[in-house]
């Protein structure tokens, strides 16, 4: 019986619980993922040594390979926080979602996606989206595919992780690419003279401790403010009361 192929990794109950919990939350930041891993080890097997996170996830991915899904690591576009999410690698992304959403909701999503990609800033204002499909009220998408920021919508990192391939194939001319990492770009900074774009965290890393930031392409002065490189230690030290989407008090039930 070839159920799950065990080519490179073996999956124990620890891995399974981790996967289950990651799927429940959808998308988690790196520190949450580390905490989750420790929690899973504690619940099942206190004695086994805690694997390194990359190996742990690589183990799980090798088992999930046959299903074409993967735990992917991504970086949020606005402040460079590393996040992990379970994504579907098969390219029939939209048609698979057809089982969850109604036809007109899917349509709205497709049109909103187009607007976001075509826009300059990577944001599409809610009025534009509302104008596109006027019979639907502009409701927030359930799967965190759209994130709201003062009446404007953009794509959540999870959506970018999952749909990067699909977006590149469907909108090859309109899509924007970061000059540094060559990944899909929705939000970012652009040089005014030559027009190249870069992600905010990529900008931060490239111009780290550089007093005179210059564009890598045309060597003109970089006109925008250089953001700070994301430092997980500083983030944790600054306060555990940072505003997070859900309350994270552990609860037994």
């Amino acid at each position, binding site marked *: 019986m070839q*159920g*799950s192929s065990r080519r490179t990794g073996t*999956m124990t*109950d620890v891995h399974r619980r981790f*996967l289950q919990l990651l799927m429940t939350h959808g998308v988690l930041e790196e520190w949450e993922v580390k905490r989750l891993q420790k*929690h899973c080890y504690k619940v099942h097997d206190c004695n086994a040594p805690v694997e390194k996170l990359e190996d742990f996830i690589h183990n799980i991915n090798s088992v999930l390979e046959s299903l074409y899904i993967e735990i992917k690591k991504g970086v949020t576009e606005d402040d460079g926080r590393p996040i992990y999410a379970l994504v579907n690698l098969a390219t029939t992304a939209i048609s698979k979602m057809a089982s969850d959403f109604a036809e007109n909701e899917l349509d709205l999503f497709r049109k909103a996606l187009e607007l976001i990609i075509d826009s300059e800033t990577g944001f599409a204002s809610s009025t534009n989206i509302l104008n596109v499909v006027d019979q639907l009220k502009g409701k927030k998408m359930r799967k965190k595919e759209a994130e709201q920021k003062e009446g404007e919508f953009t794509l959540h990192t999870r959506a970018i992780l999952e749909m990067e391939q699909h977006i590149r194939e469907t909108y090859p001319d309109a899509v924007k690419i970061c000059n540094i990492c060559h990944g899909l770009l929705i939000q970012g900074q652009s040089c005014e003279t030559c027009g190249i774009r870069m992600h905010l965290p990529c900008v931060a890393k490239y111009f780290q401790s550089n007093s005179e930031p210059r564009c890598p392409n045309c060597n003109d002065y970089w006109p925008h403010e250089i953001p700070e490189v994301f430092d997980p230690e500083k983030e944790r030290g600054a306060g555990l009361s940072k505003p997070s989407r*859900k309350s*994270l008090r552990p609860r037994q*039930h």
Partner: protein
Amino acid sequence: MDRRNDYGYRMPPVQFKHLIGHERGGRNYRWNPWGQRPPPPRDVAILQERANKLVKYLLVKDQTKIPIKRSDMLKDVIQEYDEYFPEIIERASYALEKMFRVNLKEIDKQSSLYILISTKESSAGILGTTKDTPKLGLLMVILSVIFMNGNKANEAVIWEVLRKLGLRPGVRHSLFGEVRKLITDEFVKQKYLEYKRVPNSRPPEYEFFWGLRSYHETSKMKVLKFACKVQKKDPKDWAAQYREAVEMEVQAAAVAVAEAEARAEWFQHQYWLYWRTQHQHWLQWWTQFYRWLRRWTEHRCWLQRWTEQRCSLWWWSHQPWCL
């Protein structure tokens, strides 16, 4: 050779063993495009690929918690391999267990509804709260009221309890939204509760029962313990309910054992089929050899008898009294 079903509608030549009841005939019957062609040959690689697709399909569809219909699975994923449906679904549930530790259970054998449930005990200590946790808490309260009330509860009784928690019909709650819609519509669709009209009641009254999913996801014992924890009593104080809860546990254990045995048998059978295909040539050779051996032993017996006969004849013929 026209087969007609009970309604007098013509049925296709290929019988759909896996469609049941109302799906087989009648006005709802939809002509499946692959019904006319002969079933495709058994190819393990394609069956496994369909099983993998089915796993992903089930994971996505289960997000809303509305039970998945067998007909939907057949239409969207399995399509022309519906002959192999039992095998594909067994492979898919094996993969689900191995990778995600969830069970695929058929909660309604008559209308073939399936749900995904996490194996083992509760996922105790889910890190943090998710958006579902408050709803499940409310559900637990309602289930305990229904159980303690004798497995059914009038709508009025439920609203009494909810009023004490600060929930009123028609008033939007920050976490639950419209509470009435939640308990009479969403929970019913997800099969957590059943909402039935009391027969012969005017004006119409409604009652709540436990739904099929609730029986699978939790147990009467757990609900009893929850209710007693709230009331700060011992579960054994509620004698009738305690007895019922114990009975239910025994039944559930027996069902689990039976399912495990059936599963093991199925696996054994599959393994035997697989083994047979792998050792086909050897088996053929062995059967031929066995036949030859039988023939040879028969021939030897015959030869022995013939020799004996001849020998005895010779002996007799050489006796002094014959000569």
